[in-house]
């Protein structure tokens, strides 16, 4: 008995010593095979149990099983340790300088003018306006006469309009001709509630004017439409586009195609309304022109001013974009310097993301 257990002790010491010096998986495997394999020392010893008397066999069997159990656990533990060491060595060789820059995804972006235009379109679409379009090269009748700008009116001067080499055609000076086109398409049906974005041209080029720019025109016609409706609609629209805190005011103005005509001012964005250079110390900046549709214009669109009335408004997309994005120079928008345009990725629909 005694001799047997002391044998076990020697076996264990020897096994443990060998295991401790095993540095890799093959060494572990070989040790496992040497003791626990088919012909392993312990396996052989367990096979020999059969030759022992029954009483000894049970006791000796328990001892060998315990020894086997210890060896299996020790081998597993050591194998896990070696796995970890091996992986650590491997990963150590794969080390990267993670401070290097990442590879950016390739992205594109809509132009700020498109984004500003869509923003106002989306607000007005929600308010029930439908989009209408007209040609950029327009007949003089649609661009002038139909809008109560007869021949001889200063707005028709050569210095204001671009003419082309096709007779009676002009680069449209405003999106207002679409008012007439939309009315004609409605053929007298009510209500008319349309929105007309588009490119327009004026023969001006300086720090605050560009010969080509974009406008959005709005037109509402129905029974009993008045200046009160104009004020309510435009105030709602401007608050949706520029934010709830924007204050508005209306001033009398003049356009040949509206009567009465009014201009709408909003709180100056630069100073918040206290007065600065941008707003000439008034606290207000002009945002749009509008008015009640002139009876002549209604008639040219096929509507009777003694039965229906309407209002129209027009605003510049560039000016809106400048306001939304905080720009101070109109010309940058058409320069298309990609470095300039890339700044706009930080802005979500006019609000900084």
């Amino acid at each position: 008995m005694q001799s047997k257990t002391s044998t076990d002790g020697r076996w264990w010491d020897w096994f443990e010593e060998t295991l401790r010096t095993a540095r890799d998986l093959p060494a572990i495997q070989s040790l496992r095979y040497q003791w626990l394999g088919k012909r392993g020392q312990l396996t052989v010893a367990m096979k020999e149990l059969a030759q022992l008397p029954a009483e000894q066999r049970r006791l000796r069997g328990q001892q060998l099983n315990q020894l086997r159990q210890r060896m299996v656990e020790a081998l597993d533990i050591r194998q896990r340790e070696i796995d970890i060491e091996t992986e650590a060595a491997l990963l150590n060789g794969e080390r990267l300088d993670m401070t290097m820059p990442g590879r950016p995804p390739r992205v594109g972006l809509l132009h700020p003018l498109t984004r500003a235009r869509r923003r106002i379109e989306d607000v007005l679409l929600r308010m029930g306006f439908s989009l209408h379009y007209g040609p950029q090269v327009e007949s003089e009748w649609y661009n002038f006469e139909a809008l109560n700008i007869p021949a001889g009116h200063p707005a028709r001067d050569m210095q204001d309009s671009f003419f082309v080499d096709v007779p009676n055609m002009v680069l449209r000076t405003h999106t207002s001709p679409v008012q007439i086109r939309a009315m004609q398409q409605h053929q007298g049906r009510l209500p008319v509630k349309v929105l007309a974005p588009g490119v327009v041209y004026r023969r001006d080029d300086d720090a605050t004017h560009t010969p080509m720019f974009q406008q959005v025109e709005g037109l509402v016609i129905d029974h009993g439409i008045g200046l009160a409706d104009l004020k309510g609609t435009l105030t709602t629209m401007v608050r949706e586009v520029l934010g709830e805190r924007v204050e508005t005011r209306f001033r009398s103005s003049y356009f040949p195609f509206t009567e009465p005509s009014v201009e709408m001012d909003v709180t100056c964005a630069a100073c918040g309304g206290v007065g600065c250079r941008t707003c000439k110390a008034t606290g207000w900046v002009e945002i749009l022109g509008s008015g009640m549709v002139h009876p002549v214009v209604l008639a040219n669109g096929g509507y009777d001013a003694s039965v229906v009335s309407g209002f129209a408004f027009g605003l510049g997309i560039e000016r809106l974009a400048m306001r939304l994005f905080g720009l101070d120079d109109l010309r940058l928008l058409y320069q298309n310097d990609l470095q300039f345009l890339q700044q706009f990725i930080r802005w979500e629909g006019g609000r900084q993301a």
Partner: protein
Amino acid sequence: MKLSHRWLSRYVPDLPSPERVAVVLQQLGIEVAAMEPWGERLRAIELVEVVRRDPHPRADRLYLVSVRRGSGEVLSVVTGASNGFPGDRLWYGPAGTVLADGHVLGVRDFRGVTSPGMLLSPEEAGFSAEPGDLWVWRQADAVGSTLLDVLRGPDWVYDLELTPNLAIYYQSVRNIAHDAAAVAGWTMNDDREPFPFGQSTGLLRVESRADCPLYGLVALDLVPGAVTPLWMQALLRATGQRPIHPAVDVTNFVLWDCGQPLHAFDRDRVVLPIAVRRALPGESLTLLDGTVAALTSADLVIADGHGPIALAGVMGGAESAIRPDTTRILLESAHFSAPVVFRTLRARQLPTDAALHFGKGTDAVMAAAAPARVLAVMAADGLLAGVGDSAILGEVPRQRVIPFEPETIRTLLGVAWSDERVSLALERLGFGVARDLVTIPSWRHDVEGSADLAEEVARYYGLDTILPRLPRMAASPGKREPEQEFLERLRDLWAQAGYWEVATRTFSSEERERTLNRPTGRQPLQLANPLRNEESRLRTDLLTSLLEVFQFNRSRRDRPIAMFEVASVFAREGERVVESVELAVVESLDPVEQFPHGPRPSIYDLKGALEWVAAQLGWELSLSVPAQIPAFLHPGRSLAIAFTHDPQGGGGWLGELRPRTAQGFQGRRVAVLTMRADRPASPRPRGVMAHPSRFPEIVRDLSLVVPEPVTFDEVQTRIGRTGSADLRQTRLIDRFEGDFGVSLTVRLTFQSDAETLTDQAVEEEVAHILSELAGVGVVLRQ
């Protein structure tokens, strides 16, 4: 227009502060662009009395003049003036005084004598006065008074921006005062009594009553040596005008005071009678500005016995003009037809103050009343020596009358105001309201109907009194047209694909479009009046615009560029203008120097983006390599694009720019796409999303030797021709060249919805595919 607060106060004696007046002007719809004090400069100029005058010890032509100031201090000032003797009172500008020409006085040394500041002439102070070097003051003001005290303190000047409708009647201090007083409830002095013209026959005749409904002449004499009164000089100066001669200054004053242009002729230089008529063929006139106008029958002229002496309502002639010593005046006050004057103004580019008033329409009542104002002003300031003959021909036109429709006015404003409230506003603004008719004031040529009256009512009560509301009408959702919806989606997709949208101008020129030299087949639309040569036409080609943006960016920095635009191009077809929407994309293909490395740019990036966008849109495109590639493109790296619904329509091109062309835009390797942005004939495919198959995929890679000139497209077509239902995908995964030529490795993915495919079934399909490929000489690489 400049408006003086003090001038306005001649009509409204209890005029409130300049700030309050600005608010009232705003309510009238007058934009006050600026508001500035005038006259502060004059605060430094002080009235002094001469106590001694001595010759300068070392200069023959200079004098030492000792003057007593208001403080009692006596100081000595050097002057070269010939006047300024003991007892005279003079205007003295101490050091620091700013003269009319902007010069700032200092302390100067005149040959060893120090002189602080200067004794001033009228011109140096900014005024005209009786002749003499120094300005000798003859009024009773006390020594020590300043020039500003004499003018009753500083004035305030508004810079008004008048819209064209307001300019018809607000180029008149009287009319502004009238409406401002109405709106603000001020009391106003107003006098529009006609001048009692005489019946002097032989003084004038009017040949064209339609051109000139009213024409009056008054002969008057000025006191010799008379000087324009200082208060008037100050008002004229404050509003940006230069005093010239009492007769001219008074007519200018009345012009702005009540909006009635007047003209003063030198009576000794005209031969009566005066005729108002159209110019005769061959007549000409030397105008006040020295230019010679060749007259036509479109011009209305004032003529005397010798011929034209003035262009009616626009500019006087040089011959009959007032000279410095003129005292015998023939004063014209007329009402000319606005279109006649406007035509001459426009045709001759003569926007004189008179023409800008007459051309917009003036108040006929004022034509009859203005001479009375001239004489009153002249008499009050001692300028008038006498009044001679006078006559007037014609009549003040009857005031116009339109229907009074308060309900229409209420509707247009969106208010529920009573008839009385509506008519009160109109009456206060000078309209007459009697039952169902409104009489329009003689100065309001702009008013035609109820819409105009509604504006008056809104101005009177202020726009703030109209409460905002939202229109009550049948509600329906707003819509975008499908065409526009499509273009917006096209933009979104290119942005999603990694391209930057740009916004270019539609102007171009023959020279600019020649750089790319892309044959578009479009006849350009030329501008009749371009701002500059390089913007002399509307573009026929969008790609050039983008390549110019490319060049602009390249000239600033060498960075990858990928951009697109969806915009219009133009052409003329006979007398018709054709506008069509195009898509253009430009992408640089230069290797990007960066670490960690990215994929190498290739023309296949742009092709892949187009294929992806087309798939999203349901665009059915056929991309082919045609025999003829246009010169601007790389002959070996380009594709023709056609819409399958319109194969002959010339869809567009995708490819690399020919390097020589690219150089013209500072590019090396540049991928471009230019095509029509047609909406697909059929909308995007819709349907039920298929369930994924439960059965495993089987993948086979075939390395194929592909002989020249077989293309990948042919390989793919042949594979597709087998009609295998289980072949889910054919993907090119590699290409290389060896002794055998070109090898393409194609990965075929098989999968069935009904069963697990067996190897044998797949092998049969592969064999079928290989036999199809063998038809064009494509074989498996051994």
